[in-house]
């Protein structure tokens, strides 16, 4: 069932989509490498699904060029594009059995009967649901439908696989399991995959690269680890992972939080507007005594402590009135060392872990 086609690259060149005066997409420039797993991440209404629909051919851009393997497909009708699409609601045909659903794209391509049977069986094996071949769609659970939709989208060895929030209807455990499975499937088939989600954790888990989209614009395109460590704007810092944002100001060439100068070992990305210190709760350390050099120190009192299983979250009110969050694991000795609610606490953030972002891109 391995993809018998070389995977293809995709490029969006200055893609805009307007609905009246509303700009759903604003001059998107994005290149996706052959065989890459790229996630479009953004809040609802950011334009990420619109971008996917343009790529699938269900809508046309107002202007711009979409290239696949170097050729312009902007105006090509969807049924000629040869892309597999997994829909949010799966869109499995209710009047067909599992086998008929998965065989549908092959029937549309007028494959011979034996080939259809063989490839459908292979695709069902790939998603480990060979035993459900005769079922009707309404007899399947959510997770099974998800996998059948996936099998149907890859059975014809499409050039590109598109997924529109395919896991949003599943419960958390199943979702995490499917994330890994989809990732493995991608590794096996090597097919260029565009995945849309609003779940930043899902994006970080699955992707080779993540494209953060907000307000119809591409904000940042990065590998998961560097996206998390080096957000480009306040929006990205806030949207990806947990973070507290503290206002900082430039004073004599240095950034300062209130009166306190900030030690920073990372370059500050270019941008406009105010600047913010990004504090990730798990990057903070407890300090006792004086802070060593190169460590930013924050003092305050513990407001409350919430036990969440594998970790706990302590909220700290700083002397400036701002709140900081601290995440610790829940081993006995770690918990024993924590100050209790109402007690003073001193927190440190290493210069290497210190990130400052602008309000918005230049």
């Amino acid at each position, binding site marked *: 069932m391995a993809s018998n086609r070389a995977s293809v690259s995709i490029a969006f060149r200055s893609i805009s989509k307007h609905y009246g005066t509303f700009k759903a997409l604003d001059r998107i420039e994005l290149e996706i490498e052959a065989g890459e797993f790229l996630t479009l991440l953004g809040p609802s209404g950011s334009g990420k699904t619109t971008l996917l629909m343009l790529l699938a051919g269900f809508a046309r851009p107002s202007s711009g060029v979409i290239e696949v393997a170097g050729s312009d497909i902007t105006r090509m009708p969807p*049924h000629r594009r040869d*892309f597999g699409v997994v829909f949010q609601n799966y869109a499995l*045909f209710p*009047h067909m059995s599992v086998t008929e659903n998965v065989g549908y794209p092959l029937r549309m391509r007028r494959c011979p009967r034996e080939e259809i049977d063989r490839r459908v069986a292979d695709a069902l094996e790939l998603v480990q649901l060979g035993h459900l071949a005769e079922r009707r769609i309404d007899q399947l659970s959510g997770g099974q439908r998800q996998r059948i939709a996936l099998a149907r989208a890859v059975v*014809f060895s499409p050039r590109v696989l598109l997924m529109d929030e395919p896991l949003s209807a599943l419960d958390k455990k199943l979702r995490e399991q499917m994330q890994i499975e989809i990732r493995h499937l991608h590794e096996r088939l090597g097919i260029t995959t565009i995945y849309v989600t609003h779940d930043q954790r899902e994006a970080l888990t699955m992707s080779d690269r993540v494209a953060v989209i907000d307000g119809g614009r591409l904000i940042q395109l990065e590998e998961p680890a560097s996206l998390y460590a080096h957000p480009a704007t306040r929006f990205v810092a806030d949207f990806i992972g947990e973070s507290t944002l503290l206002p900082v100001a430039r004073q004599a060439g240095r950034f300062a939080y209130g009166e306190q100068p900030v030690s920073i070992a990372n370059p500050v990305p270019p941008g406009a507007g105010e600047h913010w210190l990004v504090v990730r709760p798990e990057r903070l350390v407890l300090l006792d005594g004086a802070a060593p050099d190169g460590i930013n120190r924050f003092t305050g009192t513990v407001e409350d402590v919430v036990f969440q299983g594998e970790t706990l979250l302590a909220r700290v009110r700083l002397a400036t009135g701002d709140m900081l969050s601290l995440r610790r694991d829940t081993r006995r000795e770690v918990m024993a060392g924590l100050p209790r609610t109402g007690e003073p606490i001193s927190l440190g953030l290493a210069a290497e872990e210190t990130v400052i972002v602008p309000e918005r891109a230049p």
Partner: protein
Amino acid sequence: MSATGIESLAARRAGRPDANAPELAADERRERLHLFGLSLPALLVIGIVAFLPTAWLFWLSFIDEGSFSLAHYERMVREASYLRIFWSTFEISAVVTVIAILLGYPLAYLLSQLSERAASLLLILVLVPFWTSLLVRTYAWLVLLQRRGVINDWLQGLGLVDAPLRLVHNYTGTLIGMTHIMLPFLILPTYAALRTIDRDYLKAAASLGASPLRAFWTVFFPLSLPGLMAGALLVFVLCLGFYVTPALLGGGRVLLVSMKIQQNAGMYFEWGAASAMGVILLVATLGIFWGLGRLVSLDRVMGER
């Protein structure tokens, strides 16, 4: 929680395992009674206006000259004219249904693909005639279709025909009039059903390589069949008992069950004979429903393959 706390909770539970059980059961009974009380008026109305007359009809059909008899049914089997009437009733109903499907389905499809706003505007065009008096519309057809009517005038004026066509007081006129009256009954339920078909199915079909035409025939049309079936059945059943329009436009050349019943009951006061025809029509209709039900479920069985 302390050990004593757990113990006391366990003790409380063990002490009365059936706590509140009788009260909860009584509540449930009371709720059921309330529900029954609320539906009682509706049940009474249905019983009086629907069930009793039908039962009375059955009873009458077995009474001849004051005593129990199968004479009415015997006559219907014996006399070929009755058979012909039943046959032509079912035939014209089937033809009207087919024409209504051919005209109504494309319209319902068009409406279902438009925006809600545009669709509701166009639906007015379907609904206005629907709300106009049946008698007015039937007479309007008479005016349009008669020998020296609007349509014949045009056809002759344009030189398309030499002599006026016979468009009314015959089978053709009956067909035209009945189809016109019945169209909304097909369009409305079909449209409602087509609206509910998720457009993602068609997108999925396109992404899987189906051209718009193939996507329609392999996905949209099969999914629309239950709605179309509902509309078609409605039209067919309404046609079986249709009186006014075929009586006026048929000009006595088209004899349907409804007219024979009217003759029997209104002219000869043969209530028994009229009832028997009504019963046969009802039974035949139920038979068709049952047959179609089998056909549809058979379809689903085949879908499972």
